Structure formats: C-alpha cells, structure tokens
C-alpha cells in the first residue's frame, strides 16, 4: 500500500503555511508549513507535548491558530470571515475518547449531522448509515444505546459517524490510545480499510507498526515543528535528525 501513492499527480487538499499556536505564554506550534495531498495517508508521530494533536486540531480549527494560514480546497479557512462550519462538514474527525453522543442510539449518532445539516434526506441518511454499520460490523447494534458498546465498538461508531458526512479528509487524534489492547486491532483495521479506499487521512498515533504499514508519509514532530518527514521506510529505518533517532530508539 505504501508505495503506490502517486505523489506528483495528486492534487493538494490541505496546505498549511507558517502555522503558529500559543496557549498563553506557551508556544505549542512554532511555524509549520506542510501540504497534504488528496488520497494521502499521513501519520504524525513524536513525543508527548510536541504539538501533534494541536496541529491536527488546528486543521479543522478546533484550535484557533495564533498566526498562519490553512488552505483547504484553495480557501484560507484560518481567515476570520470564513464560515468554518461548512468546511468542517468535509473534514471528519475521530477523537481519542470517542465522544459518542450518549443520549442517542447508534444509528441516530450517525444520521444526526447529515440530516440536520441537510446533506441528505432522512431516508438516504438511514440507508447510508446502515451500509456504514455493516461495513464496520456493527449492524446488530443499530438501535442500541452507546453505553452498551465496548471501547472498540464506540471508536468504530465514531469513525462511521464522521464518514456519514462524506468528508474529503479524516483526521484521527490518537484513535487507539484509550482502547484496551485487544480492541486496538479492530479499529486499526477500519482505518486501514479507509486508506485502501483512497480516503485522505491524517493520523496522530503512537502505533509505530501501524504507521509503518499503512501510511504513505510519516511526519516527526518535536517542540512545535516538523523535524523530519519521509516515507515510513526512510523515517523509521534511516532517520537523519538526531531528535528523530532519539525518539525512535525509545519507542521502537
């Protein structure tokens, strides 16, 4: 899967330019410039506190950048005048703690946004939701309350909830970090399936094996910047930057 990506011909989807983010006096992102192309599967790795999650959350403006530009489909969504809600409909996000809506059934979790935001009719949304549940093996949970689901099932639900909006990119913020070990596999399998089907994915992860196997490109972040990047093969097997080497020696 890794080497099939045709980098030169893929159109760019997200372009980040000199992105800065401060929390008070803390400089979390200190100037990131990066381009994500359509169909790419990119993972973000790095020590905790390096700004990976903040960077990811800036991409759909869950965090407001202090400075810089984020071009999505050619529009600068970091600009104040932009209606970010419209762009977020095209950027799915999956969180570490699932954030399933506990007061709705499984299928309502999925259909809520497409129906409410008038992306599809109610019938269409339900048909699509059922197909998605089938795809991730949750058809029998259709009418259950989320409290009945295991962590792995909740995360699979969270993924299809985002997919129901037919996004152009999926952002994953440590999607397996809160899972019991035996459930990590089932969630990664779903993400792999997305990657195989050419969904653009940006994944913050600690699963190095997964990053190596699934991603086209790995970005190593430390202290608010991207220190090094490359194909999984280059980055994991022949890291150049001393900080990358140091980090990999600890986690691999």
């Amino acid at each position: 899967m890794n080497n099939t990506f045709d980098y030169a011909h893929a159109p760019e989807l997200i372009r980040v330019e000199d992105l800065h983010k401060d929390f008070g006096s803390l400089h979390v992102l200190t100037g990131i410039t990066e381009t994500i192309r359509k169909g790419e599967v990119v993972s973000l790795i790095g020590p905790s506190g390096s700004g990976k999650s903040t960077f990811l959350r800036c991409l759909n403006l869950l965090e407001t950048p202090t400075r810089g530009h984020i071009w999505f489909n050619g529009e600068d969504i970091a600009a104040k005048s932009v209606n970010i809600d419209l762009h977020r409909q095209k950027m799915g996000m999956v969180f570490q703690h699932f954030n399933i809506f506990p007061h709705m059934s499984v299928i309502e979790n999925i259909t809520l946004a497409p129906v409410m935001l008038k992306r599809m009719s109610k019938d269409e949304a339900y048909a699509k939701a059922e197909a998605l549940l089938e795809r991730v093996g949750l058809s029998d949970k259709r009418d259950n309350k989320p409290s009945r689901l295991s962590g792995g099932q909740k995360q699979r639900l969270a993924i299809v909830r985002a997919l129901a909006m037919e996004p152009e990119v999926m952002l994953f913020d440590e999607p397996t970090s809160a899972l019991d070990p035996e459930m990590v596999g089932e969630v990664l399998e779903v993400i792999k399936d997305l990657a195989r089907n050419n969904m653009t994915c940006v994944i913050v992860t600690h699963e190095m094996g997964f990053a190596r196997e699934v991603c086209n490109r790995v970005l190593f972040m430390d202290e608010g910047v991207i220190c090094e990047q490359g194909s999984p093969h280059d980055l994991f097997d022949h890291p150049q930057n001393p900080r990358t080497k140091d980090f990999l020696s600890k986690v691999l």
Partner: protein
Amino acid sequence: MLANIQMVLSRFGMNFVNGLGTTLFLAFVAVSLGCVIGACVAIMRLSRFRILKIIAAVYTEIVRDTPLLLQLYFFYFMLPDMLPALSLSDFTCICVALVFNSGAYMSEVFRSGIQSVDRGQTEAARSLGLSASQTMFRIILPQALRNVLPAMCNEFVTVTKETSLASTFFVGDLMTQHSIIKGKTYLVIEPLIIIGVIYFVITFTMSKLITVLERKLATDE
C-alpha cells in the same frame, strides 16, 4: 387539642385543600417559568459575549444575595407602580417575584449541568459541522437537562416551602389559610400542626420520588 384539630379539620377542610392548591400552583409557576429563564440566563452566562455574561451574573448575584421576603416586597409594591396600565393583581406580582427568584437559582442549576457535559461532546458536534447553537440545543442541553433533573426537582421542593413567605401578602396559600383560621377560631397551634403535616407529607413524598428518579437515571446510563 385533638378535639380542636378535628373541629378545625371539619370546619375548614376546604381551606386546607385550596391552600395546598395555591401553594403547589405558586411552586409550579415559579419553577417552570424559572426553568425557562434559568436556561436562558445560564446560556448567557456561558456565552462569549461579555455584556451578556455580566447581565446574567449581576442578576443571579442580586437574587442570591438578598432575602426572598425583600424581593417579594419589592415586586409587590414596585410592579403595580411601574406598570399601572396592566393593573396587576397582588397574586400576579407575587408570582413574578417568585419566578424572578427561582430563575436565578435555576440558572445556577443549569450552568452546572451544562458545564458537567464533557467538552469532547462539543468538539465532536462542531467537528461534524454543527453550529454553536445546534450543538447547544441538540447535544449539550439534552444531556445537561438529564444531569440536572434531580437538582431541578429539589428546587421544586425548596420553592414549595419558600412560597409560605408569600402568605405575608395574603395570596391564599397554606400559610395564608393559617392566618384566616387563626382569626376565626383564635386557635394557633392546631391549624399550624395540620399545615405542618401537609407540608411535610408533600415535600417528603417528593424527596422520595427524586431519590427513585436519581436511581433510575443512574441505571439508565
């Protein structure tokens, strides 16, 4: 004394029934309208607009830091003067005062309820493209409401007892009936005991129901 109680009950039975009706009505009006105001004030307090925040905070603090009896007096005398065209009855003025009071307490209940909903819920909803208000009404408030249901019922119990202060203005609630019966029979303790029993029975029952409700909500999760 027992004989006196029996006599009061047989002669003034309807007074107690009417009094109870009025007391419950006042509590119901105060809490239900208080809920609406409370929800609005809580949203104002948590909004990003400074001026709304300040208005909401000033309102809640004024109500919470002054006695209810004073507020009742204030509305009783001020409202008719301010809005003479409406020729408000004493009863209406007292209702307004009670709503004004309970709205502030309910807003605090709602505020804690809204804040008790995990931030991740907002983030998940916003990341799907829902606007701030869609998120509030479809995702946050339903969960907040559920979290605060027991506290809301407690507020109802509290307000039920506090309406007794309204008897100062002879609005026909249970304590007003006490004054009426006292005036007619020169008996103080006997009607007081009867009224005390009525208050106790209704608030005790409601408290028990709330416990049941809390347990049910806990098992539903």
